[in-house]
């Protein structure tokens, strides 16, 4: 079994899985506690047009993805302004728009061909040193932000109405959380693509959420599960000759369904 991981590209994949597991553990917990799963998925999808143009324009995919994500965030804010409770509708409209724009650019403008699969689903086995460095940087920043702001994030997530009355700053820690999630999405794109970032940043946390009794356990458990699922998916993908990202999605979904079934009816 270990032979499967002996190639340099597989070892880079293992390092990336370990780094993504840190992001999944630290930020995934807050994503599910703050109910940001749809936001996370939509930021990933919104980067698709940016990823399509990055190659032809000769710019780094992460930079193009960042610009697309910022455009998405600005448009979402503008669409949802003054329409409390309708943020998801605005997000949904923009998400469909981003997918359509990306598909149009890929098929009719830049003729991206088979490369589209890689943009949508990523590839754990084709990562560069820069990809790993960016993920490591994002993981370090996420750990630092969590250490500094976890009380503010916890108070806000538990009691949105009462957090300010506790004397806790709410607005700027919230912005940092959203920025951290967006950053995690962008560095995860190379490995899992625009459509599967939730497989790393949401699904493991949602699974452990069914079992964890405190936030620390949720974070540690999520990191461990994301790492195990990632390695298992990589091994399965190698053995079955399929793409690692979708293998991780199927495995993560199956584990979530199993845990949900086993914990059904628990208070």
């Amino acid at each position, binding site marked *: 079994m270990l032979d499967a991981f002996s190639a340099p590209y597989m070892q880079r994949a293992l390092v990336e899985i370990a780094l993504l597991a840190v992001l999944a553990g630290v930020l995934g917990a807050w994503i599910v506690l703050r109910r940001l799963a749809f936001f996370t998925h939509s930021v990933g999808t919104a980067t698709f047009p940016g990823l399509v143009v990055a190659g032809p324009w000769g710019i780094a995919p992460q930079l193009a993805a960042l610009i697309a994500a910022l455009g998405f965030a600005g448009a979402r804010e503008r669409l949802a302004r003054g329409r409390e409770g309708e943020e998801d509708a605005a997000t949904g409209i923009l998400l469909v728009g981003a997918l359509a724009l990306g598909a149009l650019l890929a098929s009719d403008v830049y003729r991206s061909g088979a490369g589209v699969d890689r943009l949508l689903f990523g590839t754990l086995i084709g990562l560069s040193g820069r990809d790993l460095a960016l993920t490591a940087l994002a993981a370090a920043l996420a750990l630092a932000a969590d250490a500094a702001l976890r009380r503010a994030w916890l108070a806000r997530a538990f009691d949105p109405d009462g957090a300010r009355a506790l004397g806790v700053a709410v607005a700027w820690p919230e912005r940092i959380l959203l920025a951290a999630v967006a950053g995690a999405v962008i560095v995860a794109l190379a490995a899992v693509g625009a459509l599967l970032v939730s497989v790393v940043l949401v699904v493991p946390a949602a699974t452990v959420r069914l079992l964890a009794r405190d936030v620390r356990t949720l974070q540690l458990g999520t990191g461990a599960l994301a790492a195990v699922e990632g390695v298992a998916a990589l091994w399965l993908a190698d053995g079955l000759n399929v793409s690692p990202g979708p293998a991780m999605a199927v495995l993560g979904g199956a584990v979530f369904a199993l845990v949900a079934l086993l914990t059904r009816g628990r*208070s």
Partner: protein
Amino acid sequence: MSAPLVRTEELSGGYRPGTDALTGVTFAAEAGEVVAILGPNGGGKSTLFRALLGELPQRRGTVELAGRPAYVPQTERARLDFPVSALDVALMGAYGRTPWYRRLARADRAAARAALARVGLEAEAGERFGALSGGQRQRVLIARALVQDAPVLLLDEPLSGVDAPSAARIEALFEELRGEGRALLVATHDVRQARSWQRVLCLHGRQIAYGDPAAVLTPDVLQATYGAELVVLGDGSTAIAVEHHEH
């Protein structure tokens, strides 16, 4: 006469420019007073609390407070699926005085345990918040406010829908807090309870009346406060028919 811990003068405001949810509120609460805030749903009780907390987007008039007030939300609005214990929630009361770069002090943990003991939940400190009864959750939220050690407490319907032992414990605690020289503003629909406290403030989008319960709680004032929600019982007394709703 001591200086009031809370004082407002012609306080008005709302959530959007040009649309007031509450107008003309002038009252003062001194140390050791429990003030009942009576009014129908949408009558301005929560708006008043938002204004006192400095969170109302549009606010006019004067607000004077002896310090940052502690706020106790309705327990039915708390997230029951959240992975926190009763002790974790009580400890949140210390967050405001702990800089982001410091760990919570041992004294804060002791204060949180003492606050839980004070509301009768010492043994439940490790229980998951969502697994507690409604009355116990309300007491945990009050314990969180006790850890804040604020001179003024704002309580949003703390006795609504709680079990009898919890209600008795909370009412006894109000007396203790009065004795410590704090002021409590309690949003409620219970006129009987309001009669047992020191002051009553009646709201219906505006201030209807403020003062001693005996002078304020007349049928005319209650009619102006509750309108169609006021029910006259067979013995001539009144009751409030309140429909609870999601905010």
